[in-house]
């Protein structure tokens, strides 16, 4: 019977070549567009323009002033918190410990979030130092947990060049 003869046809031979061509094209495309980037994170700062007349409503904790002095090359030459000068190899570490003392001295929980630090940096200072300073004052990681110290950070208005 003819019908039966049809059912005994050879196995259909799939053409693999075009598919593999396309698949390799895709593979090459994705390999070349892949770029490994290190993850990025943010420091959030709320700085409304009215910050200049904040003194009209004094808070319980006075604003700390962090002074970052730089030389012409943008290197950090002096690091001062209020009147305390930090120097030497581990000045950022010392600044961090000072802030930690300050926050724990201030008493119970919640006081840290009221503390405000104003960063007064020289125009030429390399920006990386500012991020280090913000890292030092804003918190620390201990046992995989992030503890925050001072959350409110703001900058002084830009100085003349």
């Amino acid at each position, binding site marked *: 019977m003819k019908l039966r003869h049809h059912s005994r046809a050879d196995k259909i031979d799939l053409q693999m070549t075009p598919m593999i061509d396309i698949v390799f094209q895709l593979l090459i495309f994705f390999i070349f567009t892949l770029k490994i980037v290190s993850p990025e994170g943010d420091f959030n700062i709320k700085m409304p323009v009215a910050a200049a007349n904040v003194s009209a409503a004094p808070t319980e904790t006075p604003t700390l002033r962090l002074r970052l002095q730089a030389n012409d090359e943008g290197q950090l030459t002096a690091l001062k918190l209020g009147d305390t000068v930090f120097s030497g190899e581990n000045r950022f570490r010392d600044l961090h410990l000072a802030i930690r003392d300050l926050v724990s001295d201030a008493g119970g929980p919640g006081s840290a979030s009221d503390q405000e630090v104003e960063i007064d940096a020289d125009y030429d200072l390399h920006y990386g130092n500012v991020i280090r300073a913000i890292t030092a004052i804003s918190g620390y*990681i201990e046992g995989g947990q*992030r503890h925050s110290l001072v959350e409110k950070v703001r900058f002084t208005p830009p100085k003349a060049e």
Partner: protein
Amino acid sequence: MRVTSGKRLDPIELDMTPMIDMTFQLIAFFMVALNFSEADIDQRVNLPGSELAKPPDVAYQEPITIQIAKDGVIVFGMGDVNLAGLKTGLLREAQMIRSFGDKKNIKDVTVIIRADQTVRTGLVQEVIKACQDAEFENFALRSKQSEDSVLVGG
């Protein structure tokens, strides 16, 4: 003869299945690893590192990215601008957000600042000032995550 019959073998049939399996696996991997958000990352910016930097828990409602490259070039929107150009661009952006009326609030906008670590701080402050003049008030200073503490060393 046996030897001659051996020569008359059928063409060898390669088993394609495992190869195609692996290739699709690879494609799937590279597709997932492809990061489209790189579109607004300028290669000239080498971010400062910080061990505390962690990606935001929730995506910003209205992000605006300003990048400052090594040589002090400001990248805003589609191209390089100078400080005056940035100011105009920000004012235009602010005006556009206001024109949305109640749907968008300028207070919800977060300005993401991606500045190179060797850029002068004064320039960053001027950029922040320009944003404040356009009434933006939330800022996110971006840095790359580092494993080691950046506090160690002078």
